[in-house]
């Protein structure tokens, strides 16, 4: 089986490398566009995927309501931006406040969802919590649909085109640049939080052994809450960025984005933060090149075929670690 994997892997890589080389020579600018498009896409996935992977790392739950938190973030930004726009506020003020409110609301929702839907099931079988997560996801979608509207709503362009960027805009637009840069900053901050702060250490310890963490004095429930809050904040940032980029939102956007980010998290190795970022980028590039060179209608098919292939050939993901514990 191992040899078969290696042979198949090498064959696929060879074919891909051949096509890539051919296309790069044929039309380097188009290739670069697709590359950067994939990078933008991957950045957005990464902002959502880190939330999935952090929650999974600590309580081994696929938080299916995570996509909805992202959707709520973009709705909050839309409402704030529309209201402030009516009063004629400055664009910069609107952007800042839209982000602040989106993050605050998403965090509040993430925190509450955990307390209502997951905390009471902490010691229940994992399937119960998973079903609860799916229920929460459906509830939030329908709640937003009823509270807002089932129609698509136009989303204002919060991140404007920059005049000085004009000459390069055909390769990568200024908003795309900002999405990539924001993702780099957010993931770097997140990495530092996990690596150096007291809470970050508590998170890492809790993800490895919750009982032992409690025995050294960590309040594990607090760690779980914090994880949901941090994950919701990054999802909200992603939600606002992509809504501004795409230009419209509806109550359903969280579902597909959430599932794709989930694919990315599994691809990178669920539970690993660098894995989630890497998986997101790989998925972003795959989708971008696939739609650019093959069939653009099959974008989602491509992503989910990817998921099936990972689950068959490398279930622990690119950077996933096999849990080996000495007893």
């Amino acid at each position, binding site marked *: 089986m191992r040899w078969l994997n290696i042979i198949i892997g090498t064959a696929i890589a060879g074919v891909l490398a051949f096509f890539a080389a051919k296309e790069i020579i044929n039309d380097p600018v188009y290739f670069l566009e697709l590359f950067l498009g994939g990078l933008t896409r991957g950045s957005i996935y990464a902002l959502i995927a880190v939330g999935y992977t952090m929650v999974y790392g600590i309580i081994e739950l696929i938080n299916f309501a995570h996509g909805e938190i992202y959707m709520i973030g973009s709705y909050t930004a839309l409402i704030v931006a529309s209201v402030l726009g009516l009063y004629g506020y400055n664009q910069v003020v609107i952007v800042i406040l839209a982000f602040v409110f989106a993050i605050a609301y998403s965090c509040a929702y993430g925190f509450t969802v955990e307390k209502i839907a997951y905390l009471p099931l902490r010691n229940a079988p994992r399937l119960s919590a998973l079903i609860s997560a799916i229920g929460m996801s459906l509830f939030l979608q329908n709640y937003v649909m009823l509270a807002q509207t089932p129609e698509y709503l136009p989303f204002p362009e919060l991140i404007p085109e920059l005049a000085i960027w004009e000459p390069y805009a055909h390769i990568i637009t200024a908003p795309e640049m900002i999405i990539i840069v924001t993702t780099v900053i957010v993931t770097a901050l997140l990495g530092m939080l996990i690596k150096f702060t007291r809470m970050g*250490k508590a998170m890492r*310890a809790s993800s490895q*052994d919750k009982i*032992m*963490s*409690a*025995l050294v*004095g960590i309040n594990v429930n607090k760690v779980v809450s914090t994880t949901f809050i941090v994950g919701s904040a990054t999802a909200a940032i992603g939600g606002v960025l992509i809504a501004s980029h795409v230009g419209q939102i509806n109550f359903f956007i969280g579902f597909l984005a959430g599932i794709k980010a989930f694919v990315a998290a599994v691809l990178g190795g669920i539970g690993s933060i660098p894995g989630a970022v890497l998986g997101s980028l790989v998925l972003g590039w795959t989708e971008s090149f696939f739609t650019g060179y093959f069939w653009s209608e099959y974008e989602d098919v491509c992503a989910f075929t990817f998921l099936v292939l990972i689950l068959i050939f490398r279930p622990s993901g690119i950077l996933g670690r096999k849990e080996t514990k*000495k007893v």
Partner: protein
Amino acid sequence: MLKLKDIHTYYGNIHALKGINIEINEGEIVSLIGANGAGKSTTLMTTCGIIPAKRGSVEFKGEDITHLSPDKIVALGLSQVPEGRRIFPFLTVAENLDMGAFLRNDKDEIAKDLGYVYGLFPILAERKSQTGGTLSGGEQQMLAISRALMARPTVLLLDEPSLGLAPIIVKQIFSIIKQINKDHGTTIFIVEQNANLALKAANRGYVMENGAITITDTGANLLVNEDIKKAYLGI
């Protein structure tokens, strides 16, 4: 110092502890021996608040801690070295020790304690930047004890410190347990299947069977008790 009064603990429907009474005085080394499944580890988990008692009470320094959360109990000065050591496998040795001092803010004192545990187990200083999962069983046990000491506990609970270790390492660990008791006056409560070693090290001992305490006496007396010789010492 630590008083367990008529403790009843359940795992679902299983009545694991059936009215346990244990009292540990300041500065003592006390052993709890018994067969597999007698309820020894459950006793420690109940004391630390991981599996709270259904009935009865746990008193620590005169305070009722029966229903406190585990982190609050650690803050009061009760630390456990759990069964199977439970080293954080992907944290380095230094980070594992750091986690032991999670609730403390006194940097200078933490550094002092770190020096103390590295003095007890120099091998840990050598392996400082290795991850916990790569250590041998004996080294993991040393790390687990050191991690518990980093909380500067007044009472140290040890669950089967000899489990799965070579006899020479077991000897070393027990002599260090005695040394910790001497150096800091730390009260020590050891749960062991290795009755001989545990009773030799202890001032007093308790014998547990099927979730209840059957005999209690001084360690020396228990070592010569005929029933115990037969059942636990294999003589």
